[in-house]
């Protein structure tokens, strides 16, 4: 926190000089559209650049602004959040290998710009539901890193007290974490239904993968969402593979933003956090202005296998993964833009990285040393309103627990 405060005060002072340097650079550059710029605004210096290939449109006359920007403060905040998600997943990876995490565990690494960029454009009362690759979204929806990691280790301070595990995390306005492929999509439309029913100016974001995009219930949800003009943003996080099957082998039409002939669609470069934010603003405006649902396809990539059990190398090459890491990584590329625009220094990034590292270490420590729930707790939370004298049977005829209030 101190680092931020100090630098925010210091940087605007040399903002104009940075801008002049940047403009000079822009003139000299042969690819001006990709150049970043910094400009002085009342709120401080700004990172801005054109991203001509950030979007593709379906049934939309106009799309989001190709000129994207953020303040220095926002930029550092996005960088930090993406790093938290990246390092949190690295910690989950390590703890899984150390057998502290059991069962299924699907890592979000590589897709960070999607959750950080989208959340930045959402209202605090907007809702969200996702699939089983849920850790990054759980953190972005307000659960602490400890809440996520302790859930993964099955401890009582986990966000679901260790009852849910990797795929079943929840939070305020966050409806999970769903283990059944595609099931969250109609649920998300239902949450949007409730927003509209109550007359709220809010949307529900319903996320699914490129694999789930083929589930029948997704199309059923599309139909009703359009019929009833539900404020739902359907988001396909296309990371290229549904488990071990590439989109080309699973989808007759792999253009997920063009999957519906009556709902507009928007393809977004999901590796660019600012493009994601800009596109989400656009989609949110679309929904809240009463036009009904919209489909977004976030072009992204997962670095790990489908889950911890999948080495992720039998259906794609190691070179492919390395190539994305080198050329399209959402964190490294954004960091580079901020550096290039001289909005932040190497030292500042190092400072943030160290702070994040400490945060994750503390959470990891907590997640490993917390106790599990008492055994008797396995009988609670079956009903919110158990009938009088309601007894739950254990594993034999001599084990019963009265759970009535």
């Amino acid at each position, binding site marked *: 926190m101190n680092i931020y405060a100090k630098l925010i005060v210091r940087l605007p002072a040399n903002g104009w000089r940075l801008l002049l340097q940047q403009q000079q650079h822009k003139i000299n550059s042969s690819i001006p559209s990709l150049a970043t710029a910094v400009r002085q605004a009342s709120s401080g210096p700004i990172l801005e650049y054109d991203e001509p290939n950030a979007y593709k449109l379906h049934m939309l006359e106009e799309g989001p602004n190709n000129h994207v920007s953020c303040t220095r403060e926002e930029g550092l905040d996005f960088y930090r959040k993406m790093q938290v998600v990246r390092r949190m997943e690295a910690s989950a990876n390590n703890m899984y290998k150390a057998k502290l995490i059991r069962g*299924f565990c699907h890592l979000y690494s590589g897709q960070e710009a999607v959750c950080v960029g989208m959340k930045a454009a959402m209202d605090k009362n907007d809702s969200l539901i996702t699939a089983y690759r849920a850790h990054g979204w759980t953190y972005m929806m307000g659960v602490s890193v400890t809440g996520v990691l302790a859930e993964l280790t099955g401890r009582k301070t986990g966000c679901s007290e260790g009852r849910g595990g990797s*795929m079943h995390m929840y939070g305020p306005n966050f409806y999970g974490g769903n283990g059944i492929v595609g099931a969250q999509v109609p649920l998300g439309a239902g949450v949007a239904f409730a927003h509209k029913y109550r007359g709220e100016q809010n949307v529900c974001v319903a996320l699914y993968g490129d694999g789930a995009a083929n589930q029948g219930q997704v199309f059923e949800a599309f139909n009703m969402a359009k019929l009833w003009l539900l404020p739902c943003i359907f988001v396909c996080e296309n990371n290229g593979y549904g488990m071990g099957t590439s989109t080309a082998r699973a989808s007759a039409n792999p253009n997920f933003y063009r999957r519906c002939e009556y709902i507009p669609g928007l393809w977004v470069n999901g590796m660019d956090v600012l493009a994601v934010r800009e596109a989400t603003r656009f989609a949110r405006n679309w929904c809240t202005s009463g036009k009904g649902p919209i489909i977004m396809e976030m072009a992204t990539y997962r670095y790990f296998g489908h889950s911890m059990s999948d080495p992720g190398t039998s259906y794609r090459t190691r070179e492919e993964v390395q190539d994305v890491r080198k050329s399209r990584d959402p964190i490294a590329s954004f960091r580079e833009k901020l550096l290039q625009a001289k909005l932040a220094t190497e030292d500042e990034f190092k400072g943030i990285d160290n702070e994040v590292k400490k945060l994750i270490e503390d959470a990891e420590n907590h997640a490993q040393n917390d106790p599990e729930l008492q055994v008797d707790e396995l009988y609670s939370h079956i009903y919110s309103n158990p009938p009088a004298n309601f007894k739950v049977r254990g*594993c*034999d005829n001599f084990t019963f627990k009265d759970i009535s209030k």
Partner: protein
Amino acid sequence: MNLVNNILKSHNSMEVLRRSFSISPRLLTEKSLTIREAITQAMDEEISRDERVFLIGEEVAQYDGAYKMSKGLWKKHGDKRVVDTPITEMGFAGIATGAAMAGLRPICEFMTFNFSMQAIDHVINSAAKAYYMSAGIVKVPIVFRGPNGAAAGVGAQHSQDYSSWYSQCPGLKVIAPYSAEDCRGLLKAAIRDDDPVVFLENELLYGLHFPVSDEALSADFVLPIGKGKIEREGKHITLVAYSIGVKLCMEAAKELEQSGIQCEVVNLRSLRPLDEDIIKNSVKKTHYLLTVEFGWSQCSIGSEVIARICESDAFDYLDAPPIRVTGADVPLAYAKTLEQNSMPQVANVVKSIKKVLNK
């Protein structure tokens, strides 16, 4: 979801099971198969034997199966016979059922039976009822197979036992094998059967070795659907179980042997039709009955077994009320301790046997 089986993970969990699974030195000289090998071989042989047979499901071809149950089959038999589908259970279960109606013999793999809920309408309304509704015109020779029940640490949505759900439906045949011999003989029988069969495997058993006879290794080895097996003879109490429940009973029986209690373990093998005779005959001999399963207690397989005994002449032979050992009546928690206490352990079986026998 879900779910690619962790080879590392399952090996580890199997190590744990293997340690608790007694293998006598004699068995080491006999031929043995893992459940995984038994199922893969049975499918391989039936695909080779009958050109109408094909395997369809998620990740069954290029990936060798999410749990590696179809290892090598796509390489050997090709795209036509081993078909990868998108992650769309309702669609491919319907397509497989339609193909069966038209005379093919699909083996439809559900990555786990938890995902069969997405497709249950086709299992029940399309497959199970067609023969009856058409007055015998439309046959549906299909096998729906995959792991059923809880694996390790996969949480509530991936841990359900569907035995009693499917066993309730007329028109279906439902099999829940325990040993490698069960798997080989019954899967081959299921594929050759003209009716729709639900074949419920258990992931925790996949890596376990079981001894097999030469007879069971023959290409034409089939076991009769609807017949159980006395897995262990005894005279003091009848333990009725299926799938991984049999393993629990065998361990409990071994433990009680030392205190002079001889348990007879009935491996049901088929849940529909249910082999009533084998249970009745055993109960008439032992006079005591206990059922063991991992599914929930209400309307469970144990409930059905006990009801049938109470409705039959074997009731008069009972010397104490029969009781059930089941999974706890809760959605399964992720945390290890809670999970363990939600699933029946050998201790639950031993304690229940002693209570029934008043010992």
